[in-house]
């Protein structure tokens, strides 16, 4: 049934191709994200961050003399839908460039389509190294997981003086599997020990068996580099099982839902992230002020990265002075010292940004800055 549907949709995509174009008075850009599902806040924050940047540029007269318009598709958090969304954006909507996704697994699903059609794609926040290896049209404005894994390993070993780590990772997520590995590599290289390594699958709700096993290994902390829904449940069940050591994770924790699900169980835990709302730089504080005025909530790092990715794209469009895919690609690749909310953005040869990371701690339901770790 699904196959038939997909075939039909693909057929209609080809039939409709070319109906809508950038030849008019608008420049179309695309976004695909998880607007619903277990990672809904990722998609929504990302879309809102892009909208904020887009409205600021449009107020100043748009880019290349035209107004910019965003087309955003929901992929429900499913990789197969992510691929389909990118196909729709390119073949039906004829977008100039694509911003997305957050989750590495879904960026990896969409990237080959963008690469094949020579449409530049900038992932705001996919940190798995494989994403930009999909081709020279794929970029990102965030750091990558080998560095992010290092951040928590160094923080735990040097700052907290912890020596025994346990890992609980999501076997269905490229992000979680990769990040765990990079963390383990650095932590053991520093002299730490990985005493336990357990897996779950995204969508699971019962982690008690894995936690019981990890508890008996008596780790000093547990590294849980998953996404917020599962992490919130893991934190609750860890406390129910009498595990008192801190949990740590990565940027997948960054959602207001984390504290809603985990409640007091997530208090005191640490995670690595792209930016902190406590950063006094004017770029950051202005962004937070404008975002709050527009959407009524404090932006998380996914909104900040989305805002940055849109800024980088519009700036590149301006420098390229054309919507031609290859020229736009070259302009994006030449991005240097761009003052973003999440730091100074310079893209390296691998089309990744190299930036510092922050460690945050959950305190009274908010994410408090602890320290900055540089690459």
């Amino acid at each position, binding site marked *: 049934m699904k196959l038939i549907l997909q075939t039909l949709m693909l057929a209609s995509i080809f039939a409709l191709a070319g109906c809508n174009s950038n030849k008019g008075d608008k420049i179309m850009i695309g976004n695909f994200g998880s607007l*619903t*599902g*277990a990672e*809904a806040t990722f998609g929504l924050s990302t879309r809102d961050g892009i909208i904020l940047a887009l409205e600021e540029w449009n107020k100043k007269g748009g880019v290349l003399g035209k107004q910019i318009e965003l087309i955003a598709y929901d992929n*429900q958090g499913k990789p197969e839908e992510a691929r389909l969304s990118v196909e729709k954006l390119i073949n039906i909507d004829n977008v100039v460039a694509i911003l997305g996704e957050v989750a590495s697994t879904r960026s990896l699903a969409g990237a080959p389509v963008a690469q094949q059609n020579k449409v530049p794609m900038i992932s705001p926040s996919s940190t798995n190294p494989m994403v930009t290896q999909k081709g020279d049209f794929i970029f990102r404005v965030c750091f990558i997981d080998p560095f992010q894994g290092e951040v928590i390993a160094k923080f735990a070993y040097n700052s907290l003086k912890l020596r025994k780590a346990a890992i609980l990772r999501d*076997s269905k997520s490229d992000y979680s599997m990769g990040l765990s590995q990079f963390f383990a590599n650095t932590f053991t290289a520093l002299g730490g020990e990985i005493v336990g390594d*357990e*897996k*779950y*699958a995204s969508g*699971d*709700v*019962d982690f*008690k*068996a*894995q936690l*019981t*096993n990890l*508890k*008996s290994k008596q780790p000093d902390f547990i590294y849980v580099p998953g996404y917020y*829904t599962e992490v*919130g*449940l893991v934190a*609750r069940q860890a*406390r*129910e*099982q*009498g595990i008192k050591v801190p949990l740590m994770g990565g940027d997948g924790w960054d959602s207001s*839902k984390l504290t*809603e*699900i985990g*409640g007091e169980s997530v208090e005191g835990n640490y995670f690595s992230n792209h930016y902190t709302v406590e950063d006094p730089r004017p770029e950051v504080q202005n962004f937070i002020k404008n975002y709050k005025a527009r959407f009524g909530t404090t932006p998380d790092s996914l909104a900040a990265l989305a805002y940055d990715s849109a800024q980088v794209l519009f700036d590149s469009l301006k420098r390229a002075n054309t919507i031609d895919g290859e020229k736009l690609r070259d302009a994006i690749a030449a991005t240097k010292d761009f003052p973003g909310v999440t730091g100074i953005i310079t893209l390296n040869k691998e089309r990744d940004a190299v930036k510092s990371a922050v460690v945050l701690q959950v305190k009274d339901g908010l994410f408090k800055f602890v320290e900055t770790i540089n690459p």
Partner: protein
Amino acid sequence: MNDFIQHTINGLALGSIYALVALGYTMVFGVLQLINFAHGDIFMVGSFIGLYFARYFLGGAEPSVLGTLLVVGVAMIGSAIVGVIIEKFAYRPLRKAPRINILITAIGVSLFLQYGGQLVFGASPQFFPNILPRQNIDLGGDIFLDSNQITIFLVSFVLMVILQYLVFKTQFGRAMRAISHSLDTANVIGINVNKVILITFIIGSSLAGAAGVLYGIAYPKIDPLLGLLPGLKAFIAAVLGGIGNITGAVIGAVLLGLSETYVAGYISSTYRDALAFVILILVLLLRPGGILGSKKIEKV
């Protein structure tokens, strides 16, 4: 050893939730020879009723045992109403139809609830509010029993005792058992078959509603497709115990909960869900009647 005891406690709690759902499957099968595939979705509806009630009527109130029992009660009543509507409009008109028609209708009702649920409740997961005071009880040796698990044990136990009483000690129970022996004969001797079937649906659905709330308390992520997997597992538990047999359903559910937790704990959590289906296949191959079921093999 301590790990083993902790796994056992966790498995029993999981099994108790499966048991409440499995009872509904087995009772409906007992009286109608119908596998009510929509049963897992009634469990989901019960969970949502509990969630909305807790959110809007107890909103912000301090977690309390009384509040929790109230939420369980409301969810039971709400699910019972849903069960009655389904029975009246989907199953009763097909009472005389071939069994395959009613089976397909059950699948239709299940899909209706799942996708209707996405329209009404939204497709994104929602999070069950904290309605129960949290307390960890240290049993010594690093073994913990938390208040969720105690509530699950107590509520499941009380409901099962009530059910046992209803089925084996009351006039209604006798009528129900008579129907499960032979619907036509029961009709001939003057039992109001429709009424008994309706009450069976009320009991089964309200148990599923209670299970929905208990599940929400233990695993507070609720979405409209929630009923799918627990529903299937409860069904497998009912088959394992011998479908149609009430004690069997409870035994099957507890065994399933335990073995699932042991597999996740000692082998790999990847095989947790697969295990349930392996058990189903083994039961069908080796002992089609289930642990406590009758030996007679029936072709569906």
